[in-house]
């Protein structure tokens, strides 16, 4: 074996500096636990055990045990449990209720192992399977069956990848999904893929909601130094408004958004400044809510004939 190999591939010999044969034949068993279990199951084990437990030589308990343990395929080969196997599979075939409850015109876009974090105490991760359908994002547990969490895609205002340190100290990517009801953390086998798909879905379905609001920062040009103030930006049929935290009335009210440009600059939430041109001048905004920024861009392009910013530059916040 060694010789033929060495002859067939002379380079093996040249690699060897001390002139020893290039390959040393060894007989290395290296049995592992899975190997052992595998071998046992493939062959099958038959136990026939008689046992008497005695105290002071008086038999007290008798055990008469017959057991056959094998892989199902081995069992079937030996003609055991055939009927049972068929009945079991037949039963499952008839109870088709194990599938995810989908609407009639709903299709699964992606599915992957994952879970969501329940926010009410005790805060725990509930594992299941994450489904992205044409309408919803949901976490489904097959056994015991329960719909752990779900949201309509139309209600998702923001998706964001967060890197978290897990209990064990390993870095894990989580997907933070913000809806009107709040933010939920999802874990998924491939969070990046889920995020990309969610973003695509979000853009494919134009939001029909009458107005959208998100946390938006506004640069107020006070006399002297400009100040970034946090507040709520709303987009609606009557234009763009921004209301500061604690303000009684919106400080910004634009009937129409004529132009939108993204500039690089220092903001409290990343390095992107949104320059919004309205009927009364330019307003500087910044936000982490990518969906809101996209909606603003859509409003700007639909409101005027001057398309200003491509969607690629408007990823919002520090994305």
């Amino acid at each position, binding site marked *: 074996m060694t010789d033929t190999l060495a002859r067939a591939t002379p380079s093996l010999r040249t690699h060897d500096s001390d002139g020893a044969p290039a390959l040393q034949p060894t007989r290395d*068993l*290296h*049995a*592992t*636990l*899975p*190997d*052992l*279990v*595998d071998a046992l*199951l*493939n062959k099958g084990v038959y136990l026939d055990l008689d046992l008497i437990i005695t105290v002071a030589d008086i038999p007290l308990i008798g055990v008469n045990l017959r057991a056959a343990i094998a*892989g*199902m*395929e*081995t069992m*079937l080969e030996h003609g055991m449990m055939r009927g049972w196997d068929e009945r079991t*599979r037949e039963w499952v*075939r008839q109870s088709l209720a194990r599938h995810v409850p989908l609407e009639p015109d709903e299709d699964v876009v992606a599915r*992957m*192992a*994952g*879970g969501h974090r329940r926010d009410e105490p005790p805060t725990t*991760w509930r*594992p299941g*399977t994450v489904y992205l359908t044409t309408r919803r994002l949901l976490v489904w547990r097959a056994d015991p069956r329960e719909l752990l969490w779900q949201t309509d895609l139309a209600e998702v205002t923001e998706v964001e990848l967060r890197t978290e340190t*897990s*209990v*064990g*100290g*390993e870095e*894990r990517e989580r997907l933070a999904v913000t809806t009107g009801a709040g933010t939920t953390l999802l*874990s998924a*086998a491939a969070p990046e893929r889920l995020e990309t798909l969610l973003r695509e879905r979000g853009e494919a379905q134009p939001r029909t909601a009458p107005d959208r609001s998100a946390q938006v920062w506004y640069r107020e040009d006070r006399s002297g130094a400009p100040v970034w103030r946090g507040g709520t930006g709303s987009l609606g049929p009557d234009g763009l408004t921004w209301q500061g935290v604690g303000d009684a009335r919106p400080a910004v009210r634009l009937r129409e958004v004529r132009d939108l440009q993204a500039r690089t600059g220092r903001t409290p939430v990343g390095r992107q400044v949104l320059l919004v041109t309205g009927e009364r001048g330019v307003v500087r905004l910044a936000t982490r809510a990518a969906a809101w920024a996209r909606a603003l861009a859509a409003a700007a392009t639909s409101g005027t004939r001057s398309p200003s910013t491509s969607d690629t530059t408007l990823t919002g916040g520090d994305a």
Partner: protein
Amino acid sequence: MTLTIDEHSLKNGVLTLVVTLVEVIQEALEGQAVRRLEGGELTDEEQERLGQALLDLDDALESIKADHGLTASVADLRRGLDDVVDDVVDRLVNPSRWADAQGGETPRGDA
């Protein structure tokens, strides 16, 4: 040989043990699943479901390990278990080595 389970954290140790056992069982199940698939009795739908379930189990185990920081300790424990099994199997198939281990006593029969 001793199995070292992190004594600082009992929870970690117990979880490691459980996850390791589940992993071994999972591998056994995978082996048997392959045999059943090759047996050719399962319908397409059953094959699909079986494969998907095993993939899900695999993903779930990986994420449990990562969530609790068990990847290294599970690998350690598995190596330890494999060594034990290797040792036992080695002695079973080589009675002469068993005799060696007995400290030079005369081997009893076929051991």
